[in-house]
């Protein structure tokens, strides 16, 4: 029923030429063409054709020039060797370890508190040092690649510069569980002496 109604309507509309808005000959704002409103209808008709054809050819000229220009497509992965990734590009959160397998994380948990969506989980454990003091050290620093919004808050608020984002952007996995990274390497421990230029708390926004 609706179908018939619809067909009748659409043909009715197509046949009734009053429905057609004649919009082609009205010079629009900003268009610096000839003023063709005050001409007699026949000349208007003819000049309308020529203005239209001219504008269309202008458009075709642009694509024609484009045909011969150098293409902009990047051919990944063929260009892997030459691909430049910006230094500040944030891909994967990492914890730099030095040659002694030592990192700078004190397991303070500031990154975990600052993370807006619970991507970071710092698991600490308490050990007893040689001189008998109890000390909190890092057990696991877990970061979920799949949940991270790369807002950089963890990095800029870290008091000991223990974590940074690296440039390694090829992080696709077949399994979500593989996106959960443990950042501290097995057997690693806290670097004893502090870095030469401690950033301190003032960097926090």
């Amino acid at each position, binding site marked *: 029923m609706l*179908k018939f109604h*619809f*067909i009748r309507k*659409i*043909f009715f509309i*197509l046949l009734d*030429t009053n*429905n*057609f*808005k*004649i*919009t*082609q000959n009205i010079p629009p704002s900003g268009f610096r063409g000839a003023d063709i409103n005050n001409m007699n209808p026949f000349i208007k008709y003819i000049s309308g*054709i020529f203005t239209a054809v001219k504008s*269309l050819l202008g*458009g*075709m000229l*642009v*694509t*024609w020039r*484009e*045909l011969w*220009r*150098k*293409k*902009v*497509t990047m*051919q990944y992965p063929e260009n892997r060797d030459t691909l430049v990734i910006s230094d500040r590009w944030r891909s994967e959160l990492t914890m730099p370890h030095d040659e002694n397998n030592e990192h700078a994380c004190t397991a303070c948990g500031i990154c975990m508190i600052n993370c807006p969506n619970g991507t970071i989980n710092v698991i600490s454990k308490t050990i007893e040092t040689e001189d008998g003091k109890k000390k909190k050290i890092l057990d696991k620093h877990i970061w979920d690649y799949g949940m991270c919004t790369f807002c950089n808050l963890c990095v800029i608020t870290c008091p000991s510069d223990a974590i940074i984002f690296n440039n390694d952007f090829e992080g696709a996995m077949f399994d979500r569980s593989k996106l959960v990274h443990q950042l501290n390497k097995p057997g690693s421990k806290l670097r004893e002496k502090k870095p030469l230029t401690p950033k301190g708390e003032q960097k926090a926004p």
Partner: protein
Amino acid sequence: MNYSQPLELTGIISTLDTFFRNNLTPFWATFIEGALILIAILAAYAIIALALIYIERKITAFFQSRLGPNRLGKYGVIQSIADMVKILIKEIIQINDVDKFLFYAAPFFVIISSVLTFGAIPFGMGLQAVDFKIGIIYVIAASSLGVIGVLLAGWSSNNKYSMIGAMRSGAQFVSYELSAAFSLMTIVVLSGTMQLSEIVENQRYAWNLFNGHIPAMIAFVIYLISGHAETNRGPFDLPEAEGELTAGYHTEYSGLQFGFFYLAEYLNMFIIAAVATTVFLGGWMPIQIKGLDAFNQVMWYIPSYVWFFAKTGVLIFLSLWVRWSFPRMRIDLLLNLEWKYLLPINLVNILLMVLMVLAGWTLSDWFPGLFAIAP
């Protein structure tokens, strides 16, 4: 004057013909020849479509400062073959609530109409399956069958998008069919025949485009525009209008059925270009200048089918160029263009052509020594 034509296929064809006629009864000879021609046409149909799909994707990419398919084979040449395999092995999804018979019949209407037209095209010297006396009428009639398939597809899909697409297509096709037919008729007036092979022969020294100068050129432009519109390609792609109607009349189709629409779309583009070549640009006839036998001989060394495909290729490129340069039209702008511009111009044009032919103002009338076929 007879020129040497080393690469023409006429020899092979007549050898085959003689072989069959000598060894079989006339009925079986005709039957086997018919079957061979059918196979050849269907094979050419598929190959041309695949080639066109690849070419279009590549050229489109170049227009858009991209590279296009470049993963399968060198420069991606076997991309469209891979696509074909994919479409062949894809599931044909059974849809509830469609009008089953019409839904499955629709793609065949579209593809059959384009195969029928395809068969009548003279691809080269002696490479024409059917050569009717009323060739042009036949081409117009057969190609206009396709719209039935489109309308049926939209109607039977039971989908509002498809429906609107099909209705648009109906309106568009009926309108532009008129212009296309009239512009071909203009040339019929000029060359005095409707037989495609004769039209080609008549253009030996002067293409109809130049022989009929002003009216022929107007007819040529109108034919290109309306032919382009008939193929439902941008800027006239309202029936598909991907941005509005998702895929228009073939939204609900999948797998091979969709493949049929896809194939027919590309082949229709080829057919329009081929008919324009045959009627306006001298078809498969090489460029020849009366009196310069050496030059003509060189031209004849290039086989006729190469000439045909080269000319057609230029027109196809033009069609791609237009398609990827313009935004889509709206249905009322589209019908305005046809009914307020193309059709009136066409009617005046056909009258002009009649007057010209009667008054003897064609190039071959003015310079018979240069352009006329008969001495």
